């Protein structure tokens, strides 16, 4: 860690690897003065609002979603608009109310079940997997479950081991579930709307630290019928030398890493996965066939993680195209520590992504005139 910083100083630029730097970099982008900005929180709120308005079968259920306006204020204003029958505050009974949501979905309602964080979904995971994901199969198509499970996933800041677990790998290993992980406001809006309209169970993994982040949104995104397709990744930044795949908060880190790499002559292609299950293998493979190098980034634990699946998929489909071993950047293989500096070490930071990309490119000095 210190060694890299030393090298950085020698090269004359230090980028502080704290969250604060993200907003600094965003401010340095140019956008037209008429583009609207929207936080992820507002994006989710507006998506819920519009879907509830358009279809009376959609209802929200969870802890503190009503009178408290949502534990993270995602469901703010919905209780006043739609009443307590459609914005249901529950007792602290994850297994119970998740099961109730599944039972309601069996009969054609469209519940949006909020978990205060996905860590609490472990108390309800029997219902997510056994009565929601598997029902369409077990009943041979008679009973579909149009339910959405949403909530913040992964690490926040200083919340300790039991509140920082990333569940992307857990849920995406189960057939019958769709798992989505938005990054920007556009992703949040589009994917949540698609999830609510989808006739299958969807696990919607948000990120607490992204809720307050603002992203530019076009007029198309603000339209009430805007949705994004499930199962398609987005290429956030085109590049030629190395493919970096990421989802959720790590997309932001990867974009910043790509900026750093660009200054050193490595052109990185950043793919925002958006959908972990079904995984957009064709986009990932097409990108790897173009760049010949792959770095996967995720916040979760390394063993059996999302990156492991992507690496296996790429090795199976595009082996001849790989010029270097695939690199996985994941969270450390430890329960998340509390101390701020330890926590920073336990999750991927921008310089980790940069280092891995460089390892994949077998270079640690920039090549001239490659960009």
């Amino acid at each position, binding site marked *: 860690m210190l060694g890299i910083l030393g090298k950085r100083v020698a090269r004359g630029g230090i980028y502080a690897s704290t969250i604060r730097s993200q907003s600094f970099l965003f401010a340095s982008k140019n956008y037209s003065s008429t583009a609207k900005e929207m936080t992820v929180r507002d994006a989710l709120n507006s998506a819920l609002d519009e879907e509830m308005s*358009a279809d009376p079968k959609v209802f929200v259920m969870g802890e503190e979603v009503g009178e408290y306006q949502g534990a993270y204020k995602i469901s703010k204003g919905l209780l006043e608009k739609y009443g307590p029958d459609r914005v249901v505050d529950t*007792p602290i009974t994850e297994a119970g109310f998740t099961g109730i949501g599944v*039972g309601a979905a069996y*009969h054609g309602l469209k519940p949006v079940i909020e978990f205060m964080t996905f860590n609490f979904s472990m108390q309800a995971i029997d219902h997510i997997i056994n009565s929601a994901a598997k029902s369409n199969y*077990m009943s041979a198509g008679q009973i579909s479950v149009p339910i959405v499970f949403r909530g913040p996933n992964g690490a926040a800041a200083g919340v300790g081991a039991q509140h920082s677990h990333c569940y992307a790998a857990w849920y995406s290993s189960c057939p019958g579930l769709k798992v989505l992980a938005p990054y920007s406001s556009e992703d949040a809006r589009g994917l949540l709307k698609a999830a609510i309209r989808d006739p299958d169970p969807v696990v919607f993994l948000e990120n607490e630290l992204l809720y307050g982040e603002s992203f530019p949104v076009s007029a198309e995104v603000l339209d009430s*019928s805007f949705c994004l*397709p499930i199962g398609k990744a987005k290429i956030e930044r085109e590049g030629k030398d190395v493919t970096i795949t990421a989802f959720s908060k790590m997309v932001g880190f990867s974009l910043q890493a790509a900026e750093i790499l660009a200054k050193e002559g490595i052109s990185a292609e950043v793919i925002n996965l958006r959908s972990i299950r079904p995984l957009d293998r064709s986009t990932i493979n097409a990108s790897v066939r173009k760049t010949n190098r792959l770095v996967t980034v995720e916040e979760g634990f390394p063993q059996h993680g999302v990156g492991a699946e992507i690496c296996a998929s790429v090795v199976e489909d595009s082996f001849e195209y790989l010029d270097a071993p695939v690199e996985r950047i994941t969270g450390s293989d430890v329960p998340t520590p509390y101390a701020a500096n330890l926590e920073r070490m336990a999750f991927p930071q921008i310089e980790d992504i940069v280092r891995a990309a460089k390892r994949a490119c077998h270079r640690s000095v920039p090549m001239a005139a490659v960009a």
Partner: protein
Amino acid sequence: MASAFYTINTIQPGHRTANKTFNNPNSPFLGSSRKLRLVPFSNTIQSAASVRRQSTIVAVSSSDVVKKKKTNSSFSHSDLLITREEGLELFEDMVLGRGFEDMCAQMYYRGKMFGFVHLYNGQEAVSTGFIKLLTKEDSVVSTYRDHVHALSKGVPARQVMSELFGKTTGCCRGQGGSMHMFSKEFNVLGGFAFIGEGIPVATGAAFTSKYRREVLKEADSDHVTLAFFGDGTCNNGQFFECLNMAALWKLPIVFVVENNLWAIGMSHLRATSDPEIWKKGPAFGMPGVHVDGMDVLKVREVAKEAIGRARRGEGPTLIECETYRFRGHSLADPDELRDPVEKSHYATRDPITALKKYMFEHNLAKEDEFKAIEKKIEEMMEDAVEFADASPLPPRPQLLENVFADPKGFGIGPDGRYRCEDPKFTQGTAHV
């Protein structure tokens, strides 16, 4: 009709005076107002028993009921609990359940059925007593011991048998199996292998009924949900979570505990701090009812009341039916822990013979009518087995079907377009 509940072992929330109706022999209601001593079957039970345990008991047998009836003045048909037609219907349903389960056992030992098979012999009175009062729109949620619930609800025996054989003509195309009987047509919502899993799902189905009425304004939505589960489940957290929420939101659900005293090899008394499950209802604000589950007529009376309550919007009820399973937990269970004396005691209280006896004594039907029904069921079982045998196994492509309701799992609908681009959603009136 609220009075009916008062005459049996219920404690209404806030009323602590249930005891005075306890031993009332003149109560018109035939719920368990009398006690029957459990045959003590193990020293460990007695040594570990607290005073309370002695009071965990099953209710009156139907022969006692009949005797009681006879001591009253001569009765006319209006004193009877059932009409002739209803009686024959109940008889046929119970014989169907019994015949089907016996056929399952035969088929299992011949290798036609495999995996886990849990049989319902002896508990038919509960299924018949409750489910025959439901309409087609009402829902039933059960556990892995669900064959007879599905049959009582109306799923054809042929379909259930083929499902058990794993054939593609089964009610779930062979994809569910013994423990996962689903039928959208007859509103059988499963079939769950995890105990306690069905209870929240049933509560959700009841939630839908209320939601449809109040939010979607479908005024005729009054369908009731029955959740069947066992004594072991009553120690599980999800059970209590749902009792709380169902009572809190006054959902149209009836929680039916099929207390057969055994959870595989774990005796209910060894596993539960307070074995009287019906008492757990009032703790959550709903009536708790205790009824003899070996007597279909008593079960039916209690069920009528509870289903009526739910349909009127008065909220849930917890009904504990003391019953017994004549076979082991599953066909793989050697059933060594249960005392043969206990088993033979309950065998004398077979619900089918009890109903037959009642109907004879009240001249509701003759022997040859019963024989005709039994024969009909036998033939139906033969036919079901033949049908299942002759049905094809699921074809190879069926393996990957039905994982998602949307055919490719990419949010793409049958018309090939992205399902989320539904044009009718452009009429949203929301303002951010």
